[in-house]
């Protein structure tokens, strides 16, 4: 059994510690996230009605969730009428089984893929491989990650953790036919990927994609991309299979006027991404004639049941929240253990899997709120984080916990003024020799179990005099 793409091998704090020791990674991430956040800020500042667009985007998504059964069936009817075949999948395994069956029916054992979070989430490549089908990622960053036998670390730029010379090394070692003298000039790297993939695009029989948006009224699917690999996959093969989360709907074609303004500026910091493809079922003589759409639940309905948490389903996968997050910038995407990293991952992942499988993720944040400020659909990520933290704690109620025991003791001490004063006085007297000995007011290392605190930071010693004591003393004479 391959590992669940939504659950890491280690809890976040341990994985984060591992990642923090990688200096090159941190340099790469810092440089990349700062580049993109500056570009985004410039592009957003250009739009006079940005806030109004955000408000509309958020409201459209809330409306979609409230009317989801009606809109899904409308989408299904419209897409079917236009010649697509619509399939439904309750979970990852069912979605993978459907895609595998559809690929097998075409008689091919190789598919080209457009970058898609939904297929990452369901572990499609691994499932296809187990069925003897090779899935070739064609997005440049996905290709790098696939060649390196690595996992993505960013929603938009899965290879953000590699710099140009590391990418050159991966190409030289692992991409068949690569010139051994390939330089690390980004142009040369892009050219190398173009050459490697060109023949494969031109001969591909089956493509697998996701979709950024699915229009309920018309049955239209929309894919935004940059390189043209998307167009290659969506246009040249005979069969196209699109895996789409049920929350990707928008009610009408006109609603795209909001999202096509919000998404490119938020994600790549461009006025518009180089290519956007929109297709409705089958068009005779133009593009794939065998078109399938797999609608996937995989935890979305469970997320929908939570009135606070459901706003995570508004996400349009722009990744702006990753790029501004002080935690993401330092630990990188792998620390989150999920294909959805960063702030949105910390709220989406535990809801898709159930909090029990990802207890530590809601704590992977400083709650600074930068993610909410940049979110193009106004997901209040800090609010959902706090909400999920409560769930994570509630889930363990009844189990013994050092934190809870300590908090209970503190509650008892602090709930009576005299008791609190007395305890502080005792603590001050007890630590006075230590403060004199150390000649400073902090302790760097405490014995177990308090060592858990001092492993990450110093512990302050009680002040030499409390405010109340000082107040009482300084007023004595007056």
């Amino acid at each position, binding site marked *: 059994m391959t590992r669940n793409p939504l659950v890491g091998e280690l809890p976040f704090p341990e994985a984060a510690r591992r990642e923090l020791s990688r200096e090159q990674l941190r340099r790469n991430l810092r440089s990349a996230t700062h*580049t993109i956040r500056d570009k985004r800020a410039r592009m957003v500042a250009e739009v006079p009605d940005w806030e109004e667009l955000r408000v509309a985007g958020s409201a459209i998504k809330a409306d979609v969730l409230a009317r989801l059964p009606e809109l899904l069936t409308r989408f299904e009817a419209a897409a079917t009428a236009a010649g697509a075949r619509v399939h439904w999948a309750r979970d990852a395994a069912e979605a993978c089984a459907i895609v595998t069956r559809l690929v097998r029916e075409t008689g091919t054992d190789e598919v080209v893929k457009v970058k898609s979070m939904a297929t990452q989430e369901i572990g499609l490549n691994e499932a296809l491989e187990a069925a003897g089908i090779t899935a070739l990622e064609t997005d440049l960053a996905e290709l790098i990650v696939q060649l390196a036998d690595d996992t993505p670390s960013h929603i938009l730029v899965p290879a953000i953790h590699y710099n140009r010379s590391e990418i050159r090394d991966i190409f030289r070692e692992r991409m068949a036919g690569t010139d051994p003298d390939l330089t690390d000039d980004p142009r040369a790297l892009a050219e190398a990927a173009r050459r490697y993939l060109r023949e494969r695009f031109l001969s591909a029989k089956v493509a697998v994609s996701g979709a950024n948006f699915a229009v309920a009224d018309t049955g239209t699917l929309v894919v935004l991309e940059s390189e*043209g690999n998307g167009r290659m996959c969506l246009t040249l093969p005979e069969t196209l299979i699109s895996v789409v989360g049920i929350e990707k709907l928008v009610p009408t074609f006109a609603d795209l006027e909001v999202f096509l303004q919000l998404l490119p500026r938020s994600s790549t910091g461009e006025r*518009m991404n180089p290519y956007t493809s929109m297709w409705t079922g089958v068009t005779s003589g133009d593009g794939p004639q065998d078109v399938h759409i797999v609608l996937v639940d995989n935890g979305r309905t469970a997320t929908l049941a939570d009135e606070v948490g459901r706003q995570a389903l508004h996400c349009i996968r722009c990744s702006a929240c990753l790029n501004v997050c002080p935690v993401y910038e330092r630990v990188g995407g792998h620390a989150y253990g999920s294909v959805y990293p960063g702030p949105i991952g910390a709220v989406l992942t535990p809801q898709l899997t159930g909090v029990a499988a990802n207890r530590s993720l809601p704590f992977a944040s400083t709650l600074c709120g930068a993610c909410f400020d940049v979110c193009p659909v106004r997901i209040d990520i800090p609010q959902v984080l706090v909400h999920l933290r409560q769930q994570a704690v509630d889930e363990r109620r009844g189990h013994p916990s050092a934190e809870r025991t300590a908090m209970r003791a503190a509650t008892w001490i602090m709930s009576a003024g005299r008791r609190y004063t007395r305890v502080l006085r005792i603590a001050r007297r007890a630590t006075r020799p230590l403060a004199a000995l150390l000649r400073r007011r902090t302790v760097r290392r405490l014995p177990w179990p308090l060592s858990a605190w001092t492993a990450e930071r110093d512990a302050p010693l009680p002040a030499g005099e409390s405010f109340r004591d000082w107040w009482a003393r300084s007023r004595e004479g007056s």
Partner: protein
Amino acid sequence: MDARTEILDRIRSALGNGAAPPPVPRDYLRTAECADPVELLTERLADYRATVRHCGPGELAATLAAVLADDPRLAVPYDLPGEWLTGYRGEVARDGDPAPLTVAELDDASAVLTGCAIAIATTGTIVLDAGPAQGRRALTLVPDHHVCVVRTDQIVAGVPDAVAALDPRRPLTWISGPSATSDIELNRVEGVHGPRRLDVVLVR
């Protein structure tokens, strides 16, 4: 229970008897204001490193001939106006006349010449909808050099204007500059799988 029924049931029970959501506030600009759409489009396209040329209707054939001077083999949609090609000296392959070009034939063409459905000034975007003089989607994808003729009356100001003018039942391709990637250190590099050169000819 089949997956469809079960998913729809799960959604209904997740939603419970929640109140209907409030209407969507649409206080954003439905029609972008733009003093000079031609100038803005030119500027935006240049930002994407597309090349823009302006000409009058009588100069189109000569302008296209100059833009395509280095392209020996040109793919065009079957319904491309003949007068656009009167100055072109290379070999012309018409898609669908008599038969659709194979992928190998498309790959063999060094350039493709089309019109467009509309162009969006604010974002520097050209939209193709497989309508007149545009052909099918593969045509503008495989050749490495795309030359696109835009009439100034096809330019709209903003994205909402464009969405309102387009028909979703047609296959739509929105093109904003040549193919590019930001996957290496998040810096934009032009030229990956789609056409690496985009030349736009704006006809008054």
